């Protein structure tokens, strides 16, 4: 698998398209608290995880799919990157 995927852009693009259509991409910063900040809810988080699992053929463990690991684009991208290497 290509280890040079830009997960940050991929995650940002997915969130903008699915959950925040029409928002200014510059407002969606890498460190914005997504879940604790009320930007996306738990069901949206689940959709996001399932999307990336399918797309890259990876599996997130249950303990990884929580607020601690998925609250910011930076965290999500890092988690995904750790799975494909």
């Amino acid at each position, binding site marked *: 698998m290509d280890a040079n995927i830009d997960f940050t852009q991929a995650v940002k693009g997915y969130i903008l398209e699915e959950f*925040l259509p*029409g*928002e*200014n991409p510059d*407002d*969606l910063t890498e460190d*914005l*608290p997504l*879940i*604790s*900040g*009320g*930007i996306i*809810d*738990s*069901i949206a*988080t*689940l959709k996001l995880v*399932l999307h990336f699992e399918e797309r890259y053929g990876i599996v997130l463990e*249950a*303990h990884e*799919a*929580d*607020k*601690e690991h998925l609250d910011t684009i930076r965290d999500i991208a890092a988690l995904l990157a750790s799975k494909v290497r």
Partner: protein
Amino acid sequence: MKTRDSLHHALAAAAGRHPDRIAIVEPEHGSVTYRELAWLASRLRDRLIANGVLPGDRVGIYLHKSIDAVAAIYGILKAGAAYVPVDPDAPPSRNAYIMRNCDVRTIVIERNYEATFLAEFATLGAPPPLLVLDGTGAGEPLARVLDQADVDSTPARADVVSAPDDLAYILYTSGSTGKPKGVMLSHENATSFVEWCSDVFRPDSNDRFSSHAPFHFDLSILDIHVAIKHGASLVLVTEERGKDPLHLARLIAEQGITIWYSAPSILGLMAQFGHLPDHDWSSLRLILFAGEVFPVKHLRTLCEQVPHPRYFNLYGPTETNVCTYYEVVPPVPEERSAPYPIGRVCEHLCSKVVDENGNEVIAGEEGELCITGHGVMQGYWSLPEQTARGFLIDVDGTRWYRTGDIVVEAPDGNYTYRGRRDRMVKRRGYRVELGEIESGLYRHPLVKEAAVIALPDADAGVRIAAFLSSKDGQTVSLIALKRFCADELPLYMIPDQFKWLDALPRTSTDKTDYQRLKEFA
């Protein structure tokens, strides 16, 4: 009439019968036996009494779900006080309001929350004394804080004997005025419900109950107090884990859960995403759900994958706890699209359906469901007018709680839910007053007008849309708005959709035109 013991007497009795059985399991942290749970709760009782807690006082619980929190519940009850659990992750301003509103004598709180809570409370007055735990997990932080001051760790006092009418807990629910309101429940309110559950579900000490609902939510009353009464084991599911269908599907199998109880939304997610055929759920004998309508398509999927347990749709507001029930017998027919009935009134209560004038209607006619009996709350904390509005009083003095839910009775005696008479909706099992969301939005400095509506949604049950107009035409980004809401409201109250309008539509009498807004959504 049966004698009704207090909730904490049930723990003492179970600890006497089954001292070495596991009472509470906190996956990944540990477990406690009945003897250990009773001992920890008794030590907390002694500390609370030594700190000045008197029978009838309220004591706050500001903890994550844990063995520590269960011990806190029973320690508070043993001291003769009522417990007031809050969601530790809700906005601190909301929790400070709750603690101030019911004038808690003290609060058992985690250190993580202490500073923000005290800062919020400072705007309301002098804070109550806090019993600060350095965390939660397996009861150890609670034991540590008790060890620090106790010379002798042996419990010394006796449990306060509570009368049936004594307050056992206050649960705060969404209030239409923008502030949460406290539903006051007595020992008898709870024990009459626990006895009804015992008669219908026949639990015993071999059962393993799930504890999915948070403790500030009324579903927890069944989980905790029915399990403890029967010497069964209660398996705690934390809030974070409770949203993950894959994890939960595995947990039910690994923990050998026999009685599952939750809002339908997470069961629907498990049916869709939990890979259920991969898991051994053979131990599971009961699936209970309550809090909102279960979308039939997801219930059908669940019943197809897991046909062997008995399924019960339980219905009831916090004010009565479960008041009607309906057994769903799998399979769910392919052609069925209407939600299942909410069922018949529970045997410890009585029901009637009334029209707008409070007169009873005949079966088959729509009206508001009213409930009376031992399970019905005493009232709302320090809200005598709202309490009075909540009840219909018969000439013989019988108090009927008005649920606000419009139902119709079928010829077989089962009620079907039709809707609300006010602006309350259920979302992920939580009660949400749309007016409370509006009040939150009005606190934004740029918001001139705010109106919130609920729309039916095939997947989520209900979708919440907010309409706003701004002062001087400036608008705020969706991200900024959602972040603002997260500071003002619990996460489950944040609207799914926001729309800015030049001005909100008005009716001829100059009120917000909610019907027009539904067309805009």
